[in-house]
């Protein structure tokens, strides 16, 4: 199977703090990590490769520092890493990002399956995966918690069956291949780098493509290709009329219960 996994390098948003004086993000000391859901995507690709043979190629769009993230996945045993890097790609929203990644995937060549993480923890949109599928005109299935079966070659055509998380439970769904999946954390437990793969990764070449290397319409990349734009960014401020109940726990409880009772809540 020829598998492509998409990854994104993101700031570790769980570690981001707010400076209460200025109401801005404190970015110092926040490490860059591979988006956690994307590690599950890569792992699922490696598991399928172990089962069916084939190759796993990882692709990412970003600035030059993303190379460190790609080296990290190479040390997990990925066969090829591709970085789409060009100032012309910067400022992209999800539509332009998915278009660029789709162009990169077209250049990589034919594939059976693309695996993405459910969402990136900085943007939190969960849009790029389905949009890539649309650009490539392949079916997609989101929120995959398990790949139940893969039929790599069938008389009727290759297909994949998965469990998808929906409200209240799980759906069993299938798609013809080639297809794109977005996966949840529960799909697998990502492996740690292996010593042998780490050694190899140190000297393995990372393919870097810029705008000149891709057949990409300049109207669809970067800022020009982004229909959405940020109008403003701000830290949420909460200014409720906070009333404190003082005293012993007994007094505080009494005061709260009285307040709740008068509101008909207790």
């Amino acid at each position, binding site marked *: 199977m020829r598998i492509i996994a998409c990854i994104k390098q993101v*700031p570790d*948003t*769980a570690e981001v703090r707010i*400076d*209460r004086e*200025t109401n*801005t*993000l404190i*970015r110092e000391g926040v490490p860059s990590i591979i988006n956690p859901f994307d590690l599950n995507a890569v792992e699922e690709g490696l598991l399928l490769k172990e089962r069916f043979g084939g190759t796993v190629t990882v692709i990412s769009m*970003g600035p030059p520092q993303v190379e460190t993230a790609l080296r990290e996945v190479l040390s997990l045993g990925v066969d090829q890493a591709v970085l789409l890097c060009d100032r012309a790609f*910067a*400022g992209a929203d999800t*539509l332009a990002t*998915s278009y660029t990644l789709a162009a990169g995937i077209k250049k990589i060549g034919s594939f059976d399956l693309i695996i993405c993480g459910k969402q990136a923890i*900085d943007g*939190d*949109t*969960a*849009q790029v995966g*389905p*949009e890539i599928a*649309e650009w490539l005109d392949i*079916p*997609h*299935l*989101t*929120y995959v918690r398990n790949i139940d079966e893969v039929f790599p070659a069938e008389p009727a055509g290759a297909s994949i*069956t998965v469990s998808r998380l*929906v*409200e209240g*439970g799980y*759906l*069993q*769904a*299938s*798609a013809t291949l080639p*297809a794109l999946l977005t996966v949840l954390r529960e799909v697998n437990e990502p492996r740690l780098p292996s010593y042998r793969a780490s050694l190899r990764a140190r000297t393995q070449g990372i393919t870097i493509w810029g705008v000149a290397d891709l057949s990409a319409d300049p109207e669809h990349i970067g*800022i020009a290709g982004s*229909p959405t*734009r*940020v*109008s403003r*960014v*701000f*830290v*949420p401020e*909460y200014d*409720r*009329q*906070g009333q404190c*109940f*003082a005293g012993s*726990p*007994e007094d*505080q*409880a009494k005061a*709260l*219960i009285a307040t709740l009772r008068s*509101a008909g*809540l207790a």
Partner: protein
Amino acid sequence: MPSMKLFPDKCGGCEECVSSCPYDAVTMRDGRPVFGDACNLCGACAEACPSGAIERPAATASPAVDKTSYRGIWVFAEIRDGRLARVVLELLGEGRKLADQTGQNLCAALLGNDLGTLPEELAAYGADRVFLAEHSALAVFRDEPYAAVLAAAVNQYRPSILLFGATATGRSLAPRLAARLRTGLTADCTGLDIDRGSGDLLQTRPAFGGNILATIITPNHRPQMASVRPGVFKPLQRDDHPGARFSGRGEVVRLNISDDLLTARTKVSGFTAEETETVNLEDASVIVAGGRGLGSAGNFALVEELAGLLGGAVGASRAVVDEGWISYAHQIGQTGKTVAPRLYIACGISGAVQHLAGMQGAEIIVAINKNPEAPVFKAATFGLVGDVVQILKELIGQLKTG
């Protein structure tokens, strides 16, 4: 290549821009900021600069479409178990406000089979018009036929705004459709408004794991697509009496569905309900939630007991779910559920922005925490500073005897 614009005369060299950048893209050179390759033009530095020395580049793209020819606010009418998903009613409630504000029609796009009285329901909750596609191939949601039918309808009727619930279906369908229409989509909006100058839709949503809020616009493309989390907006009162507010509303328009729109390369073969008890946090009017400040899984039982006495549901912060004190179904916050109950009691929860993003829509928020500096108190209507376990025991004891 557009980049952030610096007005050096206004720059005081305070370096607020450097620490505000979520992408680590700003460095100082000779006392002035330089915007590096990692800059994504998000504008956080411009917002943070105390002297207004930084500006985002102006939009250089000319309008891709004639915006005035796009009219109408559409809501995708997601169906679940044969009924309208609750978020659809909430979207109609907010959509009604936007429609009245801009003098446009509020419409619902309803796809499925055997739709029965659903069109009347949509009208009763505010829709002026219902666009209907009824076909056996649409009986079960699948991305491709739904996207194809909606794209054809959008191209024919040209709505200005198209809203989806940010549900499993919405988060799969909306991006596929947005890419097909080559238009902008903003996910998980917590606020919608109309810009008085441009008439564009202002779409506000949390970003960076809920640490910040961003207002997004789609200035040059149509329709403006947005998804909204369940529980963020409120439905209107259901009212379908003739002569009442919605009289004359609910005109049904049947969409043309040619066979080529109905092809699909996916199939749905079954549904398995979750084994664990359904935790209905979104509908609860009282929620008692526990955080790490409780100290132990044993103490978490006090939260459950208090919830029981108040007739409420049990919520949890991400920290205690990660600790395994309670299942993920109870998690409230950025990566959990968004709730807006009448009463939310946060016990031993510090109030990290990621958690507040999921519950700050509650009517009354009570915070119980031993740390008077905990951010949760800024978001609380009532605060109790003290030992959480002691206070909970007192509340439980007094409610039982009271």
